[in-house]
């Protein structure tokens, strides 16, 4: 997936489907290719005929006449809508919709449930599910811009909830006592309808003191969860925090407070806000992360001010050569590390895995091979140097390759890979011929060497080298082969 844009284009434009091999059936593939060509050539033969019989599909794939297609059409043609509509009419005659048999079914969702009630009225399923379908109620809903009010004052909590569920607006105000209100809530919860539960909660929130509301909800978990969701939805952060505090749900309280930093754009203000998060009761692990988050932003602010200054002054070479792509503010830690290794490289850091990976990528990008070398060089007390990579040299090679390091450099690190198979694979993959040849030689693997000979250029130094090895050691190889 590391294909570059150019590679991609080359791939799409080439007529060879090398990458497209359906497993071992290469011949099938070429047939597929042929068939594709055959199929395409048939266009000459049939192309200019109209596709009248087929469903018309616009380029974007929307069948002509579909809803999303029509939105564009009718909105776009608002000037010449008559014409547009005429067009539509003619086009629609081709769309398959009109070819459908006329609806013969007389089923309708509502008619099923409606039972004996008035035909033609638009009632939803829930209406019909009421246990008193014949109850007469004034059609107060849908009164032209009229007032909504109750037509009866003696509905019990369960009647009221049922009405709410049917989408009828009705006043809850007459439930004055706490007992009535709670009964209302319990009725709503037993219906499982979040919409109604929320409606009752809104009413309770408005008419009960915070303390009582919280106390009663603590023993009603379903309603409590709905309240939390509702408060999040409407963004009543203050009440939400109060609630968590009351419930002693400290971790949620802390996280919910922390979440707010995402809404703060100004870096200084965000930093100050994060500072207020540091002491909050997160889990032990998260506490450390939050502290790190604060420290990181604090440093980023310093770096950003400093570097913006350096960059605009234009005196520093690194910024002139490699202008910054974006501000470092609010970037993840590793990105910041990369940035620092790129613009402010010092060797004072501790070589832990993450650091090595990041520093390696940054220095390789700058083609600072000397730094790369230093990253992996350790000295023992006698002064001998030794190469060591905490991340494994196979990964070093991959990263160097990704940053298009030259073959000489790659070769050096491929050679440091300990596992012979991995080394051979990597060397083959990145065309480090010398490493492949030497490894084969050491393994005394004549077959593989012969096979590799076909992969190097004719008459090249590599070929000569292979030939030399093959010839010089005929006797020992032949021994092996017997």
């Amino acid at each position, binding site marked *: 997936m590391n294909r570059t844009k150019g590679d991609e284009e080359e791939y799409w434009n080439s007529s060879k489907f090398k990458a497209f091999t359906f497993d071992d059936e290469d011949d*099938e593939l070429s047939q597929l290719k042929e068939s594709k060509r*055959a199929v395409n050539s048939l266009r000459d033969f049939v192309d200019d005929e109209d596709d009248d019989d087929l469903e018309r599909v616009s380029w974007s794939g929307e*069948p002509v006449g*579909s809803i999303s297609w029509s*939105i564009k059409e009718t909105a776009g043609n608002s000037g010449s809508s008559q014409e547009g509509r005429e067009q539509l009419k003619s086009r629609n005659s081709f769309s398959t919709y009109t070819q459908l048999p006329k609806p013969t079914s007389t089923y309708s969702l509502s008619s099923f449930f409606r039972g004996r009630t008035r035909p033609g009225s638009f009632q939803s399923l829930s209406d019909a599910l009421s246990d008193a379908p014949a109850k007469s109620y004034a059609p107060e809903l849908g009164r032209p811009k009229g007032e909504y009010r109750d037509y009866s004052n003696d509905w019990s909590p369960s009647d009221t909830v049922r009405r709410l569920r049917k989408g009828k607006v009705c006043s809850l105000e007459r439930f004055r006592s706490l007992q009535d209100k709670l009964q209302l809530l319990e009725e709503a919860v037993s219906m499982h309808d979040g*919409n109604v539960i929320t409606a009752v909660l809104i009413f309770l929130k408005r008419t009960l003191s915070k303390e009582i509301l919280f106390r009663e909800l603590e023993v009603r978990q379903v309603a409590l969860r709905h309240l*939390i969701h509702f408060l999040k939805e409407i963004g009543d952060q203050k009440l939400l925090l109060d609630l968590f505090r009351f419930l002693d749900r400290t971790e949620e309280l802390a996280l919910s407070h922390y979440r707010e930093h995402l809404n703060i754009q100004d870096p200084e203000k965000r930093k100050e806000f994060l500072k207020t998060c540091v002491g909050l009761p997160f889990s032990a692990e998260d506490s450390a*992360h939050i502290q790190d988050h604060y420290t990181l932003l604090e440093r980023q602010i310093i770096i950003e001010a400093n570097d913006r200054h350096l960059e605009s002054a234009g005196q520093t070479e690194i910024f002139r050569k490699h202008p910054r792509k974006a501000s470092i503010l609010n970037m993840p830690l590793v990105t910041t590390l990369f940035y620092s290794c790129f613009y402010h490289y010092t060797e004072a850091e501790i070589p832990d895995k993450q650091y090595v990976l990041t520093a390696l990528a940054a220095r390789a990008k700058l083609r600072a091979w000397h730094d790369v070398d230093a990253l992996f060089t350790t000295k023992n007390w006698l002064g001998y140097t030794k190469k060591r990579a905490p991340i494994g040299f196979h990964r070093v090679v991959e990263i160097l390759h990704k940053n298009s390091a030259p073959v000489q450099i790659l070769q050096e690190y491929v050679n440091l890979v300990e596992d012979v198979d991995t080394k051979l694979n990597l060397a083959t993959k990145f065309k480090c011929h010398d490493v492949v040849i030497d490894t084969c030689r050491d393994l005394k693997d004549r077959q593989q060497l012969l096979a590799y000979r076909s992969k190097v250029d004719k008459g090249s130094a590599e070929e000569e080298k292979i030939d030399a090895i093959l010839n010089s050691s005929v006797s020992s190889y032949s021994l092996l082969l017997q």
Partner: protein
Amino acid sequence: MAAHLSYGRVNLNVLREAVRRELREFLDKCAGSKAIVWDEYLTGPFGLIAQYSLLKEHEVEKMFTLKGSRLPAADVKNIIFFVRPRLELMDIIAENVLSEDRRGPTRDFHILFVPRRSLLCEQRLKDLGVLGSFIHREEYSLDLIPFDGDLLSMESEGAFKECYLESDQTSLYHAAKGLMTLQALYGTIPQIFGKGECARQVANMMIRMKREFTGSQNSIFPVFDNLLLLDRNVDLLTPLATQLTYEGLIDEIYGIQNSYVKLPPEKFAPKKQGDGGKDLPTEAKKLQLNSAEELYAEIRDKNFNAVGSVLSKRAKVISAAFEERHNAKTVGEIKQFVSQLPHMQAARGSLANHTSIAELIKDVTTSEDFFDKLTVEQEFMSGVDTDKVNSYIEDCIAQKHPLIKVLRLVCLQSVCNSGLKQKVLDYYKREILQTYGYEHILTLYNLEKAGLLKPQTGGRNNYPTIRKTLRLWMDDVNEQNPTDISYVYSGYAPLSVRLAQLLSRPGWRSIEEVLRILPGPHFEERQPLPTGLQKKRQPGENRVTLIFFLGGVTFAEIAALRFLSQLEDGG
């Protein structure tokens, strides 16, 4: 367009017609010319049940997408908003209405909530001072949308999040309502099975709704024999793994939305002579995918490795058919050939499209990284090294691969190990936060809350028991001619579908122990039928089971279910 809905065992066109009828009824209530303002999200689902022509027949002259500030000019009597019940949309509607009021001649405003009216939203409209402007405020319960001959969807993307993260069970209520609608059209379903907390609740609601609805007995002969309700959280493993069927991979790579997929246009450029490849379209190519397309119906559920041979065979057949033209000598023969042309042309177009899509997918699946990812997934699913830090995941983080990929793998490991060791979990967390940003503390917290990522408690890993009992991992999998559902993930048999399979034969009693390990209760309910409606089963007749996933399903799972159903039909 809708013919494919009637091919299945249950004619879903009945449902489609019912929903369309209800839409017409609403439109007719707002007499006179109309403009519809669409919550853009809804155009997808609505497109599956109606086309513009239907709306036009009911005097819908203009359609707009819902946007801030003022509405485009429209000379109509009614303006109808089709919206989901979302607070942020209410704000936009209010803005539209207020600026329209200033504009001059008064219009009639209406609002249609899909799938449900929301008192919270109406409260918001009231607060914004526009509630009184609406003449009709109604709801359109587009609960279950027919997708294919054997597939219905609620298109409710947020259901899993709502149920398991926010503990808001409104979507379960919609599910229950949708199932009541279905029973109204197709008869009472005599047996309900279920597994999981949400399944239990939906069943309870259904039973309660049935009890409350004493209006008239449902006198329709039942089409479905069984209903199986499955909680998504009973099987969190399956959606984390990479789907390997053709349709599944299209979804993994490009994403299928309301049965449509958007593809990079380069591959689909019209090849006309002398065109020289210029003017390449830049807009994504959009294709509809369903079983109405013969070729797609054949390959959608196959393992991707088996798609190539089908395409190639199909190409030969089509080429041969076109070659026929050389043999057509007499006028009669030519006439016959020409009469078949449209069909052949469609087949050719379909073949060309799917060849292109297959090439796009192949490009991804042959990449080294895809292979590495798959290897790690399969190791986890077969129970290898799930208890330590995985070096491929480490590499992905170090190279800053998309976070979603990293999280899927980490969660997969967690699920396959019944939770990660605290040390391993902390390590992953730290790496992720340092590389992708500390604010993902919130992301990780949410994953833990939903149970996708967790520390191992009690030090026991139940996954091996589950895997062995349910035979979730099959070593010898035949991708070309499958004999078991495990072909859809090239080795892993989706847990959810295995449960469905075992339910039909030999029954869940044989796996009581595993059912107890999986979260939530399992249960069986019977809905008594009047004697006249009871089925007299013919020997050898197959049962029709409706399987309802609460919280979403993958295309690979659907493929596995279709495979099972074919096995049943075959014997």
